[in-house]
């Protein structure tokens, strides 16, 4: 029943272990691709908690991702924060911002929720452009020169080191991934599933559905902010383009492609999209056409997303 169960637990830990081992095997190009994929997959996994497990489609996550991104970037650039302190600020601010954004937007539902979250996010985006004397707007800024290595006694954590980048990405992905597993198999997750399916009935069972949706929103938003913070630390770039609506649509796309409401779907979807874009853009400039066609074909073959369809046909135990 609603217990994590040993098979899913082993399965999830194996995936994390495989990703850990991969760094010793992969050639440099794929090593850096996977670093990127894991940060973005963490973002998508957080998004999936809201879309896949609670049934709420947001187009405002770029704002939450950017809250983490800018928290790290601005505190390091202007206040000279150490990476860990900057990361803590990012976690707290993205939790606060997602609670506020959720508290307002969750008063709406369906398409209205989609639009209201998008509007807030666009306002945030325009704000980062407006204050370009601070944020450097679209052009953005780089923090690598301020990222001093952290001394851990025996060894140093140097943010310029690709091994550090890889494992930082793996860490944030693992957190998001395991939280998704928890949500999919916990009593809390069962309530979210109930709200997704029949909110009226959930309310009549005595659940304060607004509050539970807010919890899911805050969890999802904080993971988005955490991913944004790690993105800033790993890629060292902070710019407005990451607050643009494009970056709200991305996790939606990755999640749907991989399978909404599956724990592994966001990883699979993100990996596929990042690679497809990379491969196609290397031989044609109109690569988005190819990406679009690929997406249509995949969705035709896997209407519930790749992992969602696999689960339906073969592996019904997949969380």
């Amino acid at each position, binding site marked *: *029943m*609603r*217990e994590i169960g040993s098979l899913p637990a082993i399965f999830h830990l194996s995936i994390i272990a495989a990703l850990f081992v991969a760094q010793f095997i992969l050639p440099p190009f794929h090593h850096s691709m996977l670093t990127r994929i894991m940060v973005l997959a963490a973002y998508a996994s957080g998004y999936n908690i809201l879309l896949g497990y609670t049934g709420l489609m947001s187009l405002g996550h770029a704002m939450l991702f950017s809250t983490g991104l800018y928290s790290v970037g601005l505190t390091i650039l202007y206040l000279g924060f150490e990476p860990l302190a900057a990361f803590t600020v990012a976690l707290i601010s993205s939790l606060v911002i997602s609670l506020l954004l959720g508290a307002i937007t969750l008063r709406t539902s369906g398409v209205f929720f989609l639009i209201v979250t998008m509007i807030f996010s666009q306002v945030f985006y325009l704000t980062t452009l407006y204050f370009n004397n601070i944020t450097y707007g679209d052009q953005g800024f780089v923090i690598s020169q301020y990222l001093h290595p952290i001394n851990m006694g025996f060894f140093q954590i140097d943010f310029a080191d690709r091994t550090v980048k890889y494992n930082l990405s793996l860490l944030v992905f693992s957190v998001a991934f395991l939280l998704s597993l928890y949500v999919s198999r*916990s*009593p*809390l997750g*069962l*309530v979210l*599933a*109930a709200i997704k*399916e*029949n909110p*009226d*009935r*959930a*309310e*009549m*069972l*005595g*659940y*304060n*559905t607004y509050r539970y949706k807010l*919890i899911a929103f805050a969890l999802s938003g904080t993971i988005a902010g955490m991913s944004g913070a790690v993105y800033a630390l790993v890629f060292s770039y902070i710019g407005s383009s990451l607050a643009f609506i494009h970056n709200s649509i991305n996790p939606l796309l990755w999640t749907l492609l991989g399978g909404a409401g599956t724990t592994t779907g966001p990883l699979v979807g993100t990996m596929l999209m990042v690679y497809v874009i990379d491969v196609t853009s290397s031989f044609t400039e109109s690569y988005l056409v190819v990406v679009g066609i690929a997406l249509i074909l995949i969705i035709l073959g896997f209407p519930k997303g790749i992992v969602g369809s696999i689960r339906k046909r073969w592996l019904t135990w997949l969380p």
Partner: protein
Amino acid sequence: MASVEDVPLLETQGLSKRFAGLEAVKSVDLRLEKETVRAIIGPNGAGKTTLVNLISGRLKPTSGKIYYRGVDITNLPAHKRASMGIVYTFQIVSLFPSLTVFENVVLAVQRRLGRGILLRLDRDSVYRQSEKALELVGLEDEAELEAGALPYGHQRLLDIAMALALQPVLLILDEPTQGLSAGEIEKITDLVKKLSKNTTILLIEHNISVVMELAHKITVMADGSILAEGPPSEVEKDVRVQSIYLGV
């Protein structure tokens, strides 16, 4: 002097609901005594479902008050009323169709036993009580099926099992026998009878023989108002009731 014992379990005062020009419920004063079965009957459009929706909190009244155990609950949201023991089962079966039968009941039980985000939940008690709730309606063998895959009558039983798992103080059943076979109707009638020993039941029902068998008191509604009220034997004789409802 009214003692605590005299306070009715539920009381509505001048309860009204207007939908864009239509007055569905007109100044209804209803008093429910503890641990009795009250049936509300009346023709379609009499305002019965609207009235119980006001009581359960799914709808907000246009005017009037609702008291539960002497406390004004008029402005409480539906989920608060549910956690206070006012449990409503929908007229149309309402489940979580893609979750299993067991998970449907677990949702009811864990709401009653849990707090907050349900971290410190005693899962053993949740499972034990969920199993018990399913046994009560005889669905224990279907526990692992998807709720949506059950035949209609069993879905209705599951719906009621979920309501019972909440251990209601006031159970509102909106046409529980609609669309059921004779055997299933008998099962539900027996269940309600058993329950009524320690639960107050408000029953909307079209099946007159079920009403006569179960109800201690009947309220007849027509056109949004209470037309007559009394024990079954009296209501049956009431000429006005016969003319508007029993079709005599």
